[in-house]
């Protein structure tokens, strides 16, 4: 009996869906508009791939969703939770209060219950001052019934989590176990304001994630599908519904990540540059050992600086619908605005009145699409210059993403990638894989499952080797319980940070393991 999986990627303009068999072969694929009510788009796409494939729905065992729900909620400042933000750090940090530097409209939504209390740690793990537990009990009473989610950030919590954890215990004691709590040490790294912002945003989108998960499960149920459901996250691995609802912020950049992972799978390349051309923008990212390279700089989300794991991307204002303006003197501009998903009505080749990048490519014979006679009258020499400029924009962005001057393979994906030529400066080869239009949905479907552990070990007692071994084992068993196939598990990340001046050579160890999703049905057959 076959085991099938559904992969869906909801983007700003398109909702893409694929159905894969047990060998990860594409059985059916579709691309539809993202709708006002996102679930209608998801439902339509799902309906289409299932009908096309004609596989028995009871054999669809897994469903992966990559979604921009949380990102949109943050950008639009809509559907956000009522939150309380607690910073543990006084008397330090008073000179830069929580949410400083965050746009005012976002502060207005998230800044109603903000507290700065005594506690936190030094860089070496010592306490700055004792945690003010009495104040935490007071705050818990104050916010009781007024908020549905709490963000807790303690100074140097990446070195010592104890104050964040104790605060969490106190809130649960007073407000009940159901209250949703986000701890900064589980979300970001050193850099207080950025980590705190990420934690606050995480707390703010908890219910969006919950509703999305419920909606997705219901949509599947309506089709008679009893599948195990996963969410895609920024680092290219999957997370369970429970985890996604706890850490929804990890989904905000999964769209581009899915494209990168899909590109890697389709081209069978592990190290390359991926160019994903959409209707409005082109995202350029880097694959390192099949996973997206992470950004080392602060990344803004909805205008707030954050520092958790995000793919390193360059986005340029060039897509299939980008508007070209030509002036009388022969000068021209490319974008940055776009006709977006209205390309089929707006662009010249489809009978519209707006000159787009797609029209240019068709007029020059680079692409066969629409009615080429509608652009035949345009000045070829001028269009050639426009085209050269478009390609230059992409080539320059590719160059900016490289770590050295050596040529690297470039993989083209996304609906707009037909615009680009077979040769690009700086590329050792240009690959345009089959199914590249829905690479993101494929990336979503083939994602791996990960497990992570973070713990402080006393190395004086057990030694570094044993501690690392123990941590690796826990991370792998976490991954297996999350649904990973033990055979394919690899350790993808190890980090150990010694806590200087602490007794017993204490070291914080973080290990992450990832593996392919276990094919349970097949295992039963064996």
């Amino acid at each position, binding site marked *: 009996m076959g085991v099938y999986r559904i992969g869906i990627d909801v983007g700003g303009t398109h909702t893409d869906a694929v159905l894969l068999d047990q060998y990860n072969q594409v059985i059916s694929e579709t691309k539809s508009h993202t709708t006002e009510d996102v679930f209608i788009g998801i439902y339509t796409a799902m309906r289409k791939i299932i009908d096309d494939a004609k596989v028995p729905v009871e054999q669809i065992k897994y469903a992966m969703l990559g979604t921009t729900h949380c990102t949109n909620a943050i950008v639009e400042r809509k559907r956000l939770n009522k939150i309380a933000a607690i910073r543990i750090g006084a008397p*330090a*940090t*008073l*000179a*830069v209060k929580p949410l400083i530097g965050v746009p005012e409209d976002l502060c207005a939504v998230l800044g109603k219950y903000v507290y700065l209390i005594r506690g936190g740690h030094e860089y070496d793990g010592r306490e700055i001052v004792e945690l003010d537990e009495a104040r935490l009990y007071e705050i818990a009473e104050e916010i009781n019934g007024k908020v549905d989610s709490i963000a807790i950030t303690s100074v140097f919590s990446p070195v010592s989590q104890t104050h964040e954890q104790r605060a969490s215990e106190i809130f649960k004691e007073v407000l009940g176990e159901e209250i949703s709590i986000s701890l900064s040490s589980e979300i970001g790294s050193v850099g207080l304001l950025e980590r705190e912002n990420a934690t606050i945003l995480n707390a703010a989108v908890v219910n969006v994630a919950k509703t999305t998960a419920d909606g997705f499960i219901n949509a599947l149920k309506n089709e008679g599908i009893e599948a195990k459901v996963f969410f895609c996250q920024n680092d290219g691995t999957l997370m369970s519904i429970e985890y996604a609802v706890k850490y929804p912020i990890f989904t905000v950049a999964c769209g581009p990540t899915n494209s990168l992972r899909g590109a890697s799978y389709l081209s069978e390349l592990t190290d390359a540059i991926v160019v994903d051309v959409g209707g409005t923008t082109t995202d350029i990212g880097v694959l390192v050992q099949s996973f997206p390279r992470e950004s080392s700089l602060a990344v803004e989300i909805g205008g707030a600086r954050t520092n958790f794991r995000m793919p390193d991307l360059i986005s340029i204002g060039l897509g299939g619908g980008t508007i070209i303006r030509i002036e009388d003197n022969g000068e021209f501009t490319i974008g940055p605005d776009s006709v977006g998903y209205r390309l089929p009505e707006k662009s010249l080749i489809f009978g519209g009145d707006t000159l787009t990048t797609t029209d240019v490519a068709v007029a020059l014979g680079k692409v066969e699409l629409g009615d080429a006679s509608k652009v035949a009258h345009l000045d070829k020499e001028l269009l050639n210059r426009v085209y050269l400029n478009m390609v230059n924009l992409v080539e320059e962005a590719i160059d900016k993403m490289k770590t050295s001057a050596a040529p690297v393979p470039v993989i083209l994906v996304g609906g707009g990638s037909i615009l680009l030529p077979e040769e690009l400066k700086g590329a050792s080869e240009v690959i345009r894989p089959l199914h590249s239009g829905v690479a993101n949905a494929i990336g979503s479907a083939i994602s791996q499952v990960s497990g992570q552990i973070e713990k402080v070990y006393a190395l004086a007692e057990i030694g570094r080797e044993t501690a690392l071994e123990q941590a690796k084992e826990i991370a792998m068993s976490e991954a297996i319980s999350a649904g990973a196939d033990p055979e394919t598990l690899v350790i993808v990340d190890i980090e150990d940070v010694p806590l200087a001046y602490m007794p017993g050579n204490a070291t914080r160890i973080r290990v992450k393991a990832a593996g392919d999703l276990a094919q349970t049905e097949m295992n039963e057959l064996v």
Partner: protein
Amino acid sequence: MRRLGKQEIEDIAVGAALLGTGGGGDPYIGKLMALQAIEEYGEITLLDVDEVPDDALVVPSAMMGAPTVMLEKAPSGEEATAAFKNLEAYLGKKIFATMPIEAGGVNSMVPLALAAKLGLPVVDVDGMGRAFPELQMVTFYLDGIAATPMVLADEKGNTSLLSTINNVWTERIARAATIEMGGSTMTAIYPMTGKNIKESGIRNILSLEEQIGKTIRLAKQNNVDPIKEVLNKADGFELFRGKVSDINRKTEAGFARGVATFEGINEYKGEKLEVRFQNEHLIAQTEKRLLCVTPDLIAVLDAETGLPITTEGIRYGARCVVIGMPCHPKWRTEKGIEAVGPRYFGYEVGYVPIEELVKKGGIA
């Protein structure tokens, strides 16, 4: 005398990053401190040096320690206040005004936040006209002014008053105390008279930073080339246009040392420029010619926006314009060159002023 509000702070922060010549710490967190202080206590008074009485007590305020620690354990705001109160008690005299000790990076902002909080004026002057890595690298040192008595303060309320036999001992003892106090402290250092700063300080430096920042901001709005405008404002020279083709960094003896290599674009095509740094940029040279050398200033700007890029922010592929600016004449004296010239940092070249290098098209 004039007032500094939020827009002025934003502009000064950009100018401070440029005069930070790649180092000095990101002014971002300092900027946020200053903005919050203005919001809570109101605008800041900026005084011209000549508006300070000769006998008035002026004390610079600065952060000491690891910028990384400050990014996580931001200051309380009380440290600098405590440092000032303690110094006043020790000297038995009221502090008239504060000022930055260095114009570049995070320390350009710390005195502004303090001034807003204490209602003290800030004097338009500093002791470097740029950023340098060590405590004795100030023009006041050239004139024999002592760094102590100084006070170090942490956010917990601890303070430490130092009185040392020379500025090298100040650096050693203060550094050790800072580590014990949690890796980042605020200091009240180099207490001086109005006469001292008139004679030994670098004047109008905050105004210059503000003008640089404003120029870059307005250039973007008015669609003019920000770099040309900045060069005009700072009497600078364009040294090179290129893209970063290699960046080599290592941490040595507590400093970020390294080399950034740029491959020429436009009229510089076919040439290569190397910028060597120790926290700050110290030398710019092509394969054939020396273009600019410390204590003259070398800044790397984003070719498109004109915004300054720090050494941590330099990444392969970035399109940059490297510019050079003449340092203050005080650094061009024999003692100045000895303290901060190329040989102090271990480079086997003599100092040649940037104007001469540019006139000759560089030294082969």
